[in-house]
């Protein structure tokens, strides 16, 4: 694909206002909660109070006879279905069967005329549990006498785009392991001029989205239709197809607007349960979770990392080794992929000749962990980028200069067998450092840090689309990409409008209905602009090719004589726009042309990752040394996005991701006391607010058109999150001289570290 120079663009690389903005701020945008089907009933879920218990008996008779109740469904009522699902392994029953594995696990559901009636009936379900010993941390899970969460072997799940093998179900609590190794780590550490070694903890976090999980299912003789707040409708379709043993064509997933995902809505969540409710109640059923219930549905994997990094006498990083134990909770969900990705992402965007990473995730009796924005990268960037600063301090180098000397260079094959590096980190770092005034003097109690990350992003390249050009020259894009708020429904038509040469307003999007829109693997891993964007670009060009042939037919000339111009064709004196080509071809002002594109792991997408998602963040913090409280003074984000199809939206993703990462750095953490989640509500779980935003914010984009996507674009939207926790830890270390290896850096943790420092000082 020939590269257009930046300034030549008509529609892309312009911050056109987002398509859904007006509808959303005026409350007119329809989400699943707004939908109502004829005869629709409502479900409510009974959840286990115990983290690990045998289900001795469930008596639903009293609940079933409550006013307004259609039916009650439990794990005992699922005969005829295959009740286990899961993207990696099918370990997850849609309702607990025989036992429960975490406090909050769905045990039964009531379907009733309205939500209140369903809710009121829940307390009439009589469940007898027999408590079992719990396993709450990876350390407990790997103990010799640890009780097993899962006794039986599992079938593999869909595993779309998964490179390794799944480990789960081998008679231990090990859910997944992944290892990478090159060079000779032991030898390198022996030769090293300096080594940093430490243990780090990245917390369990919740990817808060304003919209909690919601789905409507209609299961009848024609198959399964589901409206859901799902990020990946085609993945969910696969799970439902196997639960109900139906052909793909009889399962339909429809996703209207989604009120935020951040990974929490990737893969299958409540859809199997709602579908089972509809199946049993024989009518459409809606299930809307509360935020508190959503917090019992998914979270990020927390990670215990031991890491060491070595430099030689010239300040070159020569080795990194890490051992990671992740806590995946009661079910695998997508965590096996998180394990694989976090293993890779441990290397960071650095060229390190000797690497060994060993990563294990364990089942525990906690809320199942799964995808979370950044996908395992934040978990390992806290140790990785902390150690870069720790090492720099140890050898007396400026951490910014130290990074410049060690980051992967453009085109460098820094990670064996993977795509050569496609970003420009030296440039990115320089911009971040300048933005926060790296070299300027600092007041007491203040510190700065710049940090970066590079993720093997884009998931798996399997994406298709159709671009329909209508007889009036307007166009409709059929896309399986979901609008989560990230702006895909603005960016995608920008690309089609650019290619077809038609006004942006005349290009519309139909999306995320598996019965109508062509297959797209997923909306995640920052892949949509790169992959769906490429597909839309190719499909637009394919439509143009067809219209060239049509024009030749209409003008009765050879195809070679037709010349494509913006918005139409020319042949000698004759000039036709697309409307004229189509109308004259069909002999009526009607009809259409359908351009198609299929993207697969071939051609320019044959090498993984699809792209390296690269970004830098820079922060300045101030620390109240008496209370330990951190204030964010400055933030800079640098998105290395190749080309921003819509700069304002790209920057919006960066500030959003950085704020989310700041939340983890400062206060976000799901806290368990024994087997109970203690802060499972947004009153108790502290999310970032507007008042937490750094006082000064600069958002930068680096656009070197070095990506594999349309016009040299590549993905963004996750990367600014990854380095934030490490950045805050580094800035605090530089501000007040304490190194904290655990996020979040709550005031009390900072205060304790300061106290410890005083103690050590006074002992000397």
């Amino acid at each position: 694909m020939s590269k257009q120079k930046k300034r030549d663009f008509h529609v892309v690389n312009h911050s056109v206002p987002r398509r859904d903005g007006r509808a959303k701020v005026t409350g007119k945008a329809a989400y699943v909660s707004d939908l109502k089907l004829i005869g629709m009933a409502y479900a409510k879920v009974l959840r286990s109070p115990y983290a690990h218990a045998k289900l001795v008996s469930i008596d639903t008779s009293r609940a079933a006879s409550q006013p307004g109740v259609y039916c009650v469904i439990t794990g005992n009522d699922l005969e005829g279905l295959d009740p286990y699902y899961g993207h990696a392994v099918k370990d997850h029953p849609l309702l607990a069967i025989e036992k429960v594995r975490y406090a909050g696990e769905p045990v039964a559901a009531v379907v009733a005329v309205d939500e209140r009636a369903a809710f009121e009936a829940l307390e009439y379900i009589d469940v007898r549990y027999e408590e079992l010993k719990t396993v709450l941390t990876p350390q407990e899970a790997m103990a010799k006498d640890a009780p097993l969460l899962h006794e039986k072997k599992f079938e593999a799940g869909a595993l779309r785009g998964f490179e390794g093998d799944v480990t789960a179900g081998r008679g231990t609590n090990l859910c997944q392991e992944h290892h990478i190794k090159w060079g000779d780590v032991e030898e390198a550490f022996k030769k090293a001029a300096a080594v940093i070694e430490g243990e780090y903890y990245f917390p369990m976090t919740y990817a808060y989205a304003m919209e909690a999980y919601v789905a409507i299912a209609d299961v009848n003789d024609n198959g399964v239709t589901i409206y859901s707040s799902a990020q990946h409708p085609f993945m969910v379709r696969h799970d439902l197809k196997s639960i109900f043993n139906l052909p793909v064509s009889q399962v339909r997933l429809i996703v209207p607007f989604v009120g935020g995902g951040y990974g929490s809505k990737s893969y299958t969540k409540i859809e199997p349960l709602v579908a089972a409710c509809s199946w049993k109640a024989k009518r459409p059923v809606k299930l809307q979770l509360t935020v508190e219930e959503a917090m019992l549905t998914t979270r990020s994997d927390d990670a215990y990392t031991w890491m060491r990094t070595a430099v030689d006498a010239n300040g070159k990083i020569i080795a990194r080794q890490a051992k990671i134990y992740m806590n995946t909770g009661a079910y695998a969900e997508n965590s096996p992929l998180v394990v694989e990705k976090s293993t890779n992402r441990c290397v960071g965007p650095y060229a390190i000749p000797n690497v060994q990473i060993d990563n294990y995730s364990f089942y525990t009796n906690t809320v199942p962990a799964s995808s979370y924005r950044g996908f395992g990268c934040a978990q390992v960037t806290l140790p990785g980028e902390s150690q870069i600063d720790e090492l720099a301090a140890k050898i007396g180098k400026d951490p910014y200069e130290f990074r410049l000397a060690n980051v992967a260079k453009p085109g460098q094959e820094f990670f064996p067998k993977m795509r050569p590096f496609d970003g420009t980190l030296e440039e990115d770092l320089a911009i971040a450092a300048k933005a926060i005034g790296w070299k300027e003097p600092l007041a007491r109690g203040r510190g700065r840090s710049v940090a970066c990350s590079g993720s093997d992003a884009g998931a798996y390249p399997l994406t298709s689309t159709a671009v329909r050009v209508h007889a009036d020259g307007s166009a409709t894009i059929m896309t399986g990409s979901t609008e989560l708020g990230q702006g895909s429904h603005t960016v995608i038509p920008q690309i089609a409008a650019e290619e077809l040469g038609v006004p942006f307003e005349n290009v519309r999007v139909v999306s995320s209905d598996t019965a109508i829109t062509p297959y797209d693997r997923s909306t995640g891993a920052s892949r949509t602009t790169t992959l769906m964007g490429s597909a839309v670009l190719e499909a637009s060009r394919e439509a143009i090719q067809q219209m060239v042939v049509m024009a030749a037919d209409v003008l009765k000339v050879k195809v070679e004589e037709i010349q494509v111009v913006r918005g139409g064709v020319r042949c000698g004196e004759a000039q036709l726009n697309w409307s004229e080509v189509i109308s004259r071809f069909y002999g009526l002002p009607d009809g259409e042309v359908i351009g198609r594109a299929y993207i697969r792991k071939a051609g320019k997408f044959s090498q993984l990752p699809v792209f390296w998602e690269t970004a830098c963040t820079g922060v300045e913090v101030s620390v109240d040394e008496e209370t330990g409280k951190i204030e964010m003074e400055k933030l800079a984000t640098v998105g290395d996005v190749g080309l921003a199809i819509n700069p304002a939206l790209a920057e919006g993703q960066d500030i959003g991701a950085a704020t989310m990462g700041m939340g983890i750095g400062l206060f976000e953490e799901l806290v368990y006391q024994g087997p109970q989640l203690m802060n499972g509500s947004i009153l108790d779980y502290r999310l970032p607010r507007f008042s937490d935003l750094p006082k000064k914010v600069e958002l930068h984009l680096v656009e070197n058109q070095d990506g594999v996507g349309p016009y040299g674009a590549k993905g963004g939207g996750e990367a600014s999150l990854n380095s934030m926790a490490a950045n805050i830890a580094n800035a605090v270390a530089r501000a007040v001289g304490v190194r904290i290896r655990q996020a979040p850096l709550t005031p009390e943790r900072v205060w304790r570290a300061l106290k410890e420092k005083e103690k050590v000082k006074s002992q000397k």
Partner: protein
Amino acid sequence: MHQPKSVGEAAEMLARFGEKGRLYAGGTELLLAMKHDLLRYEHLVDIKTVPGLDKIEAKNSSLSIGGTVTHREIEKSAVVRERLPVMAEMTRHIANVRVRATGTLGGNICFAEPHSDPATLLLALGAVAKVQGKSGEKALSMSEILMGAYETALAADEILTAIEIPLPAKSQRAAYLKFQTHERPTLGLALVLSLDESGRAITKAAAAVGSVAPKPCRSEQAEALLTGPREKVERQLSEASGALADAADPVDDLEGSAEYKRHLIGVYLRRAFAQVLSGNPPGREKIAD
């Protein structure tokens, strides 16, 4: 939902409904708890329709704030800002503007949530709650009305009609500071000092801490240590904060360990002391909201 026309009628209704009924003001606490099924009532008695409870009045030596006055009204009130600026400033940092616009001072006190900002300040200011029930009226001090977490001395039919706050004398200065990183404060500390004419000695002190215990508390011992010549009191600050912390007896919870909270009491007592004596208007201190 019932809409009584007088306090008497409301008390009558509450008495009649007993356990099944509850007074409803702004609903910012009540409706949330009911939505989560933590509380269930069949009857809600809307007190906002009762005339006369929504007034702020300055009397000679006290300020009276009606039971249904919202936080927002207090924070914007010219009378409060002029006569009791510390109250206006404290109120400005309660919750967020949506909660302040509907939440009432009466509801805040009567819900007895341990992390109340007003309760702590009002305790130090020596405020009194005016209460009316079926069988008459009474006045309760803050330490009398607040019994514990979510627990007040009010009977089912009793309504808080107003809070009366003694206006500080010219020689008195007050400050309220809080440490907050979560939805509600981790620590609130109110300090009211009376100075002698020279401004060099403290003749009377009231210090209250809140949020760290089931209800806000004061300590006689701490207040004795906070009285006397300024330099002496300054030297006694950490002892005073220890006494205050002993009285509050904080526990470990999600907001922090007992040890950390005891430490914060010391930091904030020192900051409040400095602020009161500097004569700066309260609120210069950065308060998270």
